[in-house]
């Protein structure tokens, strides 16, 4: 790649696009946004192709002392690379999903989305802890506007709840970051990742970071902002919220909580596992009784994130890999499910499940694609969901068979609520005339859904493509936390057999 600052370029393209959109007519703004996100996708592919798997831990690093107190420092490892790919892949889809459904204030809408893209990939690229915080927090502003301006009827409440909830979670983390910078004398994330903080301080720092990431994830019981935000956000807003913003929390845990505070992570392992178990079971049960499609999928997101957190705190490579694949898979699948909801919402303008029914008859192609993503969400072998759930649960099993048992019930419950949703929407009699008259997928909708389906299938059939870049980084992380890793409860007892010679010696004596 030579000295070309590709990471800065990836930040700059959508930023320039956002400013251009702000001053453009609706039609031009749509085209500008699509072009900008596609350029970023192309840059992302170039980035992936040039990523040296098995090479240096931090690649494409850039550093400039532009600011006082912290640096403009960018760089990625395999974990960040995969999440950046997820973001740049979903962004053109989001723009496409809003192509016709957004008619008011299009320029500002597109600008907000492009700004979101800058901030989200900035979070994954940041190599300076304060730069990370700036990107991490700044993403609240465009999301607040997206929910508040283009959201549903109850959008004001949802936007406030979203903003204040996540802000309260993060401010304490900032104080913890300042303390860490003072203690370690550096703001560089790679250096902080290998700095050993005193175990007593780790406890407090871990809690401060956890407050932020748990809200962002979101973990039970601080998940309540998510269903509101999802339901009120426009379709593309939900896609980006579920697809990428929730991953900020998981990324934070894998980048900060685990490597910087291994002892504290071990100390709080049961807190995380306990909350994850509750999340998986409780939110799955809540999802089962929803009447609103988006709310159902939102609760299923919380349940899936529960498996991510359980996998992260399993202190082994399977768990970490599983959690990462789960984040990628969930980003694709739940993003696509929100798109599927958006497709029929655009036609009937309701999210009530009971207003639909028998869509397999008049929308066969839609029903097929929806079924694929339903299965991927359940974790059918061959789809990305299976790889994710299998790896994470295998990791959790090593540390606690009970936690693995409880989390696995989530898969059964997941199958229950997703299949129940699918039955009510796609199968059965066509009770509503207007729903029965809806046309099948348009070309634009095919273009949005098919690439995601292909990616989910690819991840399910050959996950090695996605695991390979992350393997080395996960191994490094595993080695880092292994010194604090708690004992698992699977106590294998080796039998104490008698050696053959002894047995024979005994025989000879007779």
């Amino acid at each position: 790649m030579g000295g070309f600052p590709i990471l800065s370029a990836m930040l700059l393209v959508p930023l320039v696009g956002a400013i251009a959109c702000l001053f453009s007519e609706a039609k031009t703004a749509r085209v500008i946004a699509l072009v900008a996100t596609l350029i970023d996708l192309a840059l992302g592919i170039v980035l992936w192709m040039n990523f040296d798997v098995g090479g240096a831990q931090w690649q494409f690093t850039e550093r400039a002392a532009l600011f006082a107190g912290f640096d403009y420092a960018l760089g990625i490892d395999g974990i960040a690379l995969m999440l950046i790919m997820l973001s740049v892949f979903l962004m053109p889809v989001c723009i496409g999903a809003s192509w016709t459904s957004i008619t008011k204030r299009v320029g500002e809408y597109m600008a907000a989305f492009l700004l979101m893209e800058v901030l989200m990939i900035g979070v994954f690229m940041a190599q300076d802890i304060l730069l990370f915080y700036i990107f991490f927090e700044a993403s609240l502003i465009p999301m607040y506007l997206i929910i508040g301006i283009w959201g549903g009827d109850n959008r004001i409440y949802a936007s406030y709840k979203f903003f204040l909830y996540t802000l309260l979670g993060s401010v304490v983390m900032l104080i913890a970051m300042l303390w860490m910078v003072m203690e370690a004398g550096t703001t560089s994330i790679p250096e902080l990742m290998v700095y050993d903080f005193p175990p007593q301080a780790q406890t407090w720092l871990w809690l401060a970071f956890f407050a932020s990431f748990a809200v962002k994830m979101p973990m039970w019981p601080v998940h309540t902002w998510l269903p509101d935000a999802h339901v009120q956000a426009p379709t593309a807003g939900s896609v980006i919220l579920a697809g990428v913003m929730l991953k900020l929390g998981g990324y934070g845990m894998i980048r900060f909580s685990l490597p910087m505070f291994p002892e504290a992570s071990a100390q709080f392992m049961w807190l995380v596992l306990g909350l994850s178990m509750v999340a998986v079971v409780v939110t799955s049960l809540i999802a089962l009784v929803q009447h609103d499609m988006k709310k159902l999928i939102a609760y299923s997101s919380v349940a899936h994130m529960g498996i991510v957190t359980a996998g992260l705190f399993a202190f082994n490579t399977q768990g970490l890999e599983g959690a990462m694949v789960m984040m990628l898979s969930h980003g694709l699948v739940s993003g696509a499910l929100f798109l599927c909801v958006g497709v029929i919402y655009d036609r009937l303008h309701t999210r009530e499940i009971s207003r639909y029914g028998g869509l397999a008859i008049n929308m066969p192609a839609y029903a097929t694609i929806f079924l694929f993503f339903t299965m991927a969400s359940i974790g059918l072998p061959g789809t990305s969901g299976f790889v994710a759930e299998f790896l994470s649960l295998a990791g959790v099993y090593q540390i606690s068979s009970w936690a693995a048992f409880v989390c696995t019930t989530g898969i059964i419950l997941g199958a229950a609520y997703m299949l129940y949703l699918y039955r009510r929407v796609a199968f059965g009699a066509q009770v509503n005339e207007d729903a029965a008259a809806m046309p099948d997928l348009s070309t634009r909708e095919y273009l949005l859904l098919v690439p995601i389906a292909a990616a989910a299938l690819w991840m399910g059939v050959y996950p090695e493509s996605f695991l390979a870049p992350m393997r080395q980084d996960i191994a490094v992380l595993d080695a880092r936390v292994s010194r604090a890793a708690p004992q698992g409860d699977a106590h294998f007892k080796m039998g104490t057999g008698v050696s053959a010679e002894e047995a024979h010696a005994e025989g000879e004596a007779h």
Partner: protein
Amino acid sequence: MELSTSLGLVLPELILSLSGLVMLLFAAWGGDRLSSSISVACCVALGAAFALVAPSVCAGASGPGTMAFFGQFSADAYAGMAKLMIYAASGAALIVAPRYFDRLGAMRAEYPVLILFAALGMSIMVSASDLLTLYIGLELNSLSSYVLASFLRSNEKSAEAGLKYFVLGALASGILLFGMSLTYGFTGGTSFAAIQAAASAGEMSTGMLFGLIFVLAGLAFKISAVPFHMWTPDVYEGAPTPVTMFFASAPKVAAVVLLGRVAVEAFGSQADAWRQVVIFAALASIVVGALGAIGQKNLKRLLAYSSINNVGFLLVGLAAATQAGLAAMLVYLAIYVVMTIGSFTALLLLRDAEGNQLETFADIAGLSTTRPALAWCLLLIMFSLAGIPPLMGFWGKLVVFWAAVEANLLALAVLGMAASVIGAFYYLKFVKVMFFDEPIDRVKGEADTANWVLLAICAVLISPVGYLLTGWLVSVANTAAGSLPLAG
């Protein structure tokens, strides 16, 4: 020390006072016809003073060479940086005023002269290194301010604001004088150096402690820190908007910087004695400023509570009682001044078809569809005041809390930061009303170039572009804070 050296050190103040006196004569004989030319002349005087102070700030002037009139006046970089902010804010108050007063037919030639005298008073305040100099500067500023608050003579609210400000201000001055007399009685000196010498000699006597508390209380009134904040919402609401903008910016800078100097230069060796007072005032200001703003419907009242809230964050920097803390306080002040000028300039641009000022939330509903540029500028300012990155308001909060963490005031940092979320609630309301509500299209006022230019400058400075200036700002603030003698 020779008289000429001393006079050289107070040259900016000399320019201000001489041009103020000359302008006063022009105003007396020329009448209100000359008000615009007097405004321009006052701006030029402020600019000249600015240009004279700037080199000493950049050079980081400090030490005995900066003391004038036998240690009564100190022209060091710390005072210099505050003066730059004061002159800039006063200049802004002159620029936005004519348009506002002309419509009411109330533009008088005294306005620029009063602003000039207030700036002179503040200039003396921040340079004071003796209790008497302090008091002279403070009163010169206060007396000008009382008149400015009631500048719209026929307006009841404005008259009420002036009277309230005067009565409560006089009370605060009394408290301050009482504290100063106690301090003098128990230390035997009025210069900060003498007080420092007496205070560090041994245990702090009860009388000296009382003196310190009363001085702090008097100054807390001037910066409207809780629990001495009650006058602020009424005065801010009643005073003419350009004057409110002036009150919220320049005198805040002067009083906070003065408080920092008194705390460090006079009582620096007894930091533990005043630190708890400052911590209490900081937290109380953050919380009361945030809670009080929630129910407000009038935008000026809301910004008054916002300024109380901001003073809390400034005091967090002072509570650290370190050089980094003072530097952080100066950085926060600079950002606060820009945000304040920006927000009030935007308020001044809110006019209906007849040119009346609009001041309530109901008037700006849906502003983003009718006046997108104004709404986006206000959005930037509000998110910046709320301290959301990547806007500059976040940087200000970051540096003060950084200083607090480094001074091991973790509990203060955590509580202050958590309380800042309450503040975010009402700043969000601004954005909600402008962007989410149905437009009512009441804002009609035509373009006003001077205000727009000022607003655009402020918006650019607090946008992420402003971060490119942080390196320079922090180094200036560090040298400025470094020019103060910090006791152990």
